């Protein structure tokens, strides 16, 4: 009888441990899948770039997808820039358009502008 009780207790403990491992794994898998699904659903473009004489740049971003996006970073030639208006991160609803202003951190002949969303998507345009 004693052995049976011990075996049952051990079994329950192993089962609880397996349950916790299973819950953690499925939860992280679920978050990966939902993140990927959300990343796949995101669709946005930079539909215009306006480089002004004083070094200010205006990027026009258009979210043409069915889900909202969160714009978190803007890069120029791989250099992170700080938006002067509006501040980032910025939520852009489906169909939404926004102008992001910042000052050019570098000077050159060719600029690669990159806008990155919270889920890791990014779009690039080259301005000459």
């Amino acid at each position, binding site marked *: 009888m004693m052995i049976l009780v011990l075996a049952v207790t051990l079994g329950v403990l192993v089962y609880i441990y397996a349950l916790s491992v299973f819950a953690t794994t499925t939860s992280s898998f679920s978050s990966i899948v939902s993140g990927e699904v959300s990343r*796949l659903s995101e669709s946005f473009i930079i539909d215009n770039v306006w480089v002004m004489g004083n070094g200010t740049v*205006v990027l026009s971003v258009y979210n043409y997808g069915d889900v909202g996006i969160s714009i978190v970073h803007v890069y120029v030639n791989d250099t992170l820039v700080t938006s002067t208006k509006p501040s980032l991160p910025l939520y852009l609803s489906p169909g939404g358009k926004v102008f992001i202003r910042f000052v050019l951190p570098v000077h050159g002949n060719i600029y690669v502008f990159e806008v990155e969303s919270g889920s890791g998507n990014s779009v690039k345009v080259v301005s000459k």
Partner: protein
Amino acid sequence: MSRGVGGVVAAMFFIAVALLMFIGLELIMIYSNNMQSAILSREASERERLNERLYIQMVRLGPGNRLNVTVMNVGSVAVRIVRIWIINVTSNYYYNFDINPFIILNPGESVSNVGSNIIIQRGNVYVLKLVTDRGNVFSIRFAPSKQARLQIQLYTSPLLIPSGQQVNLLLIIRNNDTRFDAVYDLTPILRISGNASYNIIMSDNTTIPWLELGDTVVFRLSVLVSGVPGSVIIFNASYADAPKGFYDYVVVKVTYRPLPNIPRFVYITAYPTNGTIISTTNDEGIIQLAINVTNLVDQTLNFNVTVLAYTLTENAKIGLTSAQDPFVTMTQSLSLLGGQTKSFLLNFTYDVSNAKRDNYFVFIVNVSTAKGSPPVLSNTETKIVDIVIIGKED
């Protein structure tokens, strides 16, 4: 007793483990389905995005310099235009307008008067962008003709004329300035100088609102030239405010006076047997030109019939034999009794396999008296025939 309890406990464990596995499998299936449907939906939207194609046919400046854009959906899916950008490249200024309600264009449909609420200034270089709800941006860069370097060719027939003879001029302007997709407000200019006098009979020098890259426009002019033998008249052709060096000219010389009672010695008719507008799906074919020449004088005359065939479309070719060129000249001799008419057919081969749409050909038939005729009758007569070959798309 304890064996029975052990069996029950084991069975419960087995059921619990099986349930866990089942739930796990079910969850994996749900996630996998979600992922798959997201991938499929993304794939479908990307496919539709790639199939979206808009052709900006023309940008006109209407009354009050209001924009008038004509757009055609040349893709295989319906397109919704959601936004217009008009960028003044000259002054680095941007305007954008959200289109509300959206312009919806089904495949093959076109719409005009887009952007009529936008007023722009003539004389500047602009970039027009149309943004669709699938995230495509279709743009065109257009400039006033005064900023463009256009190819000008001036052809005249004939170059030697008796006084009182009509000269036919063909001014061909081709947009080969690759800096722009199109030019607007193209006005041809013809300056006439020299010591012979002239009278313009026919002119079609109207302003062309839009000329795409690679396209050609033809202007015609007929001038009656009079003067003493040896006098000349110079035709200098260009376009309004053209950059320096962009012109072409020809010199026409007055040779001798014709007999006043024989202003015309020959009558020409020339027409393509397969029509002036040939609708075809073939890239190569034959244009057959029927030419009739009538000797209007009461004596036998020898004639030279010269046919100049031009193709006015980039990469199109025309020829009499297998060797094909952008233009070709052909001469044939005829001897006609007084009052006699002679008919003959000429076959020209064309090749538009690498050309754009609206393949445009011009044939200039010129008849002049040849050696052996009384020199006083050495008169000329010209006939121009246009042929447009349609049906070949980009």
